[in-house]
């Protein structure tokens, strides 16, 4: 995962890159000062901010935003949300969030591909149809369905 994040962290202006879960648990990071406490707090604060925003827009029946940027005096925080995780990028003062838009999209796409690839069938094997439900739990067919139709009017079915 770090190998996926590292090219992004090497871009000019990028100070720190982190992949976090939706509830703020750090998954992987690249760049930065190596202070784990600061990274943990950044992850928690970023996730909490994103959750606050999602809650703020919920009354408008909007879904949670996919990309959020906070441009401030001492840097810019960019968050990009996917189904499974959230990519957090901290930029320096001179950088613009647009500079990292495409690279961030690329990194998240790779992460999602890796995640889906792990669940997928290994190369060379044919995907099998899913197994049938447990026999004991399978509903027996209705009694009428097993009977052949009545041969003549007035006779009972099954003869």
């Amino acid at each position: 995962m770090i190998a996926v994040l590292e090219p992004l962290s090497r871009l000019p202006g990028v100070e720190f890159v982190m992949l976090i879960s939706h509830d703020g648990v750090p998954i992987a990071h690249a760049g930065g000062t190596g202070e784990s406490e600061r990274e943990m707090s950044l992850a928690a604060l970023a996730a909490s901010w994103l959750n606050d925003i999602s809650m703020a827009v919920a009354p408008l029946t909007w879904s949670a935003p996919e990309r959020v940027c906070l441009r401030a005096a001492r840097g810019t925080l960019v968050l990009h949300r996917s189904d499974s995780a959230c990519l957090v990028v901290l930029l320096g003062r001179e950088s613009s969030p647009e500079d990292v838009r495409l690279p961030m999209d690329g990194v998240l796409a790779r992460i999602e591909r890796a995640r889906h690839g792990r669940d997928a069938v290994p190369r060379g094997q044919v995907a099998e149809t899913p197994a049938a439900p447990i026999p004991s739990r399978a509903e027996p067919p209705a009694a009428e369905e097993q009977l052949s139709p009545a041969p003549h009017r007035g006779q009972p079915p099954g003869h």
Partner: protein
Amino acid sequence: MNFLDRLLSFGRIRRARRALAAEPTPSTYLALAQQYAMAGRTLEAQHTCVEGLTAFPDNAQLSRFHQRTHRAEREAHVQRLRRELAQAPRARLWRELCEVLIDSDELSKAEEEVTAWLERDHDPEAYYLLARVLLARYLADRGRDQGRAALAAIEHSLERLPRDARPLRAKLELFSRIGAWKDARDVAAQMLALEPGALELEGRYRTLSARADGAPSVERAMHEVERSGRLADEREPGAERAPGRSALPLLRELAAQPDVQAALYVRGSTALVQGPKGATAERTARAVQSILAGSRAAGRRLGLGQVFQIQLEGSFGTLSIAPGEQDAGALLCSGPLGRAREEALLGMAGLNADASQGDHQS
């Protein structure tokens, strides 16, 4: 700049001067200032901008150019100091460099320089300057951690400079700005012990004594500043009356564009909304206010300082918010924001317009 360029610039400056004399407009002032700047005469460019701003105080282009020339001048000064420091490092140059950087709000660079100075020699002056840097950072960011760091640095510099009033003054400023009046009064008493009979200090001591009853502790005051984002001496948003400029024409102009769903101007607890009507307008305004408050708090806690722009993108489109000191402009579009609209939005922030009159208020 070579001799030929300098020679040619004389002619251009002369023509710009004549044009200004014939018709003094913001553009002729700007043209002359630009010619001076291109000729490397930044001081004269600044004087021209100041003269132009005296005649046309609201002109944004002149104001921006004045800031740019001022910044260029300051950067040249910083470069000169750095060159001298590389050749012959000494305390006076370090101090001047750090003070220039602090005054120009380049706190990260100032901190780097002070740290480099401290690594070289443990000059007590460097400790004091570090305290000033951290105090300036706290007053800008308002996070509790920065406040604690600033206070620790001030205490450290007090240990190194026990008979100096400057660290005490910094401590007094910190306590007074956060509203820890009781602790501020104690610091004022310490300062009076250093400078007995100082009239300004005596007056300040009496004022602080009057406010000391029931004042919060330093930790509590810092917590309150972090929560609200306002220092004790700052007024409630909305308490200050607008200077009369209205945000409505700009909002209407923005809302008339085809892919704009809503244009908002938020100030305190009131909002002007163009686009959605009724309950939707109220909900949109509340959402923007909530995002704004949350993002300002997040910026402070993350140590990023004052927030300039917040942008949300999703299936709903793009919501961009440009916060000012007390107000904010917001725009909801179906597609991307675009440069022109972004500039218009940034212009709306800090307008301090009256939000109590308009199509909708919440």
